[in-house]
């Protein structure tokens, strides 16, 4: 029995070695991929005549026919989205269109009413409490208001995920890592380390939140309106940090924002959502999915209205309860 187990492992290892090649063919095998719950495999005959399973690496994050309904209020309808490794996707749209809800379903903070969310091929809804907790350690989440723990100092906040998950790190190693992370986001560790979140400015808090999200070397960063409420210079600092996370750390990213400048600068791909309440039953909620160049050429008037920031008849529409 032991021997059999070992041979299965070696097959897996061999199959894993083909991953790089396999990932490229994910798009072609989408139908097959969808028919399975988590890991996709196709049987093939190897050179020595044995049957083997080629495991394909699923996309980093995949959202499948997602619907979210709160009480009687439908927020998201039939959303399908894939995030590949290393790419940064900006989800844009006006307030109340469900961007943040979509972001929170990606990490399981909001449960889908119907539909599924996969992280590396694992359906978040089927994971146990413990597995979900472990999976989330691969994410970095930057909250709109930073969400720093106000009972802790800045250094303790950044060290928090390390203390929870990296038991093998000594106090000194943690302190060094915290110092490195704070410097990385442009903060002087000697000045801010021992302050509490209430003693520093909004821009600094946001950057501390950024450092905390980076602490665990995540595979995907989720940004919830990271530039909202910041001055133009600080907004651009945050943009640069997101670009550096993407390029230097090779982290995938999902950026929820209504700041077009930030979306265009940071993201490789833009996705636009439209408020569900303003759509008819047959209109899709995702009204744009493409690159920054394409969005400027998009002929959909709803898209051009948003990217140019035009009110048009919105005041009249809103007063009529639309």
């Amino acid at each position, binding site marked *: 029995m032991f021997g059999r187990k070992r041979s299965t492992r070696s097959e897996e290892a061999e199959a894993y070695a083909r991953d790089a090649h396999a990932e490229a063919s994910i798009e072609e095998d989408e139908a097959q991929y969808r028919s399975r719950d988590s890991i996709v495999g196709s049987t093939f005959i190897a050179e020595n005549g044995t049957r083997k399973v080629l495991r394909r690496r699923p996309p980093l994050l995949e959202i499948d026919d997602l619907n979210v309904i709160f009480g009687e209020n439908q927020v998201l309808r039939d959303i399908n989205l894939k995030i590949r490794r290393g790419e940064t996707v900006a989800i844009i749209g006006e307030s109340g269109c469900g961007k943040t809800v979509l972001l*929170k379903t990606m*990490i*399981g*903070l909001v449960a889908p009413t119907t539909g599924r969310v996969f992280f590396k091929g694992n359906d978040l809804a089927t994971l146990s*409490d*413990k597995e979900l*907790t*472990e*999976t*989330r*350690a*691969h*994410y970095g*989440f930057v*909250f*709109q*208001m930073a*969400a*720093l*723990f*106000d009972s802790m100092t800045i250094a303790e906040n950044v060290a*928090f*995920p390390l203390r*929870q*998950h990296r038991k093998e790190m000594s106090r000194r190693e943690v302190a060094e890592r915290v110092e490195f992370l704070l410097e990385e986001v442009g903060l002087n560790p000697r000045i801010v380390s021992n302050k509490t979140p209430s003693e520093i400015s909004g821009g600094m808090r946001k950057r501390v939140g950024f450092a*905390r999200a980076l602490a*665990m070397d995540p595979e995907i960063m*989720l940004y919830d309106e990271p530039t909202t409420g910041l001055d133009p210079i600080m907004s651009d600092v945050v943009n640069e940090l997101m670009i550096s996370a993407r390029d230097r750390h090779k982290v995938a990213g999902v950026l929820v924002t209504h700041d077009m400048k930030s979306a265009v600068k940071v993201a490789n791909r833009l996705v636009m959502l439209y408020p569900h309440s303003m759509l008819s039953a047959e209109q899709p909620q995702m009204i744009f999915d493409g690159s920054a160049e394409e969005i400027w050429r998009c002929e959909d008037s709803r898209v051009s209205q948003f990217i140019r920031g035009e009110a048009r008849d919105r005041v009249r529409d809103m007063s009529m309860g639309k």
Partner: protein
Amino acid sequence: MNDRNQNETTLRDKIIGQVSKMGRAISTRVALAGNLAVFSTSTIFWLFAKPPKKETLISSFFNIGVLSLPVVMLTGTFIGMVLAVQAFPQFKVIGMETRIGAAINLSLVKELGPVLAATMLAGRVGSAIAAELGTMRVTEQIDALSSMGVNPIHYLVAPRFFACLILIPGLTLFADLMGVIGGAFFSIKLLGVDWSYYWEYSRHTVAMFDVFAGMFKSVFFGGAIALICCHQGFRCGAGAEGVGKAATSSFVLSFVAILFLDLLLDVFLDQIQTMVFGTRGSVM
């Protein structure tokens, strides 16, 4: 004719409106109870699955135990004295003022000690827990914990629940002790009851089982307070108003739960006592 029809329709609408309102209220409450049950199960699961971290336990123990002690002791003292004031004239009328100690101490250890210690805990610690966790919910700190792969029930609720469960018998004991001292001081020093009779009758009437019964009940009160208050904090609505509401409702719900559990446990413990020790002794 038309008028009558219209009247009937409005009456029917009114009735339907009322029924649906009632239905909604009931379903909300049933959902809340179910939600609390799931929350409680999850808390107990996490308590055993992974013991709470030392640093979270220490701060919970300090906050719930050490900081609550003065107020619980103060309440106990005053209740002991108030009992003496209230009971003395009644006992004096029938010439039995020497037995006042039995009445004071029995009601203290069985009822007032545990219930008042629990009420003070719900007021001092419970609403603070609800407000603290509510603020953490509103400012997304609870979501931040989840997003970092830390289960908020394990990190925030389990230590508070454990601390309440472990510490409330001790707090009850201190409330009992101060109540006994307060009652005795008032009866003997100020009302002039003979001290040897006072203690003798007390000793005869109050059994160890009564002290145990009080502490046993308090464990349930402590658990209920922690779960209700943490749950209220976790499901806190938006903004300052939501936090305020969570704090208020956590106290009200805890208090109702304490009284309800008290009744149930009294019936249960009474049966046990009768079964084990036979008929109960009386103050007289």
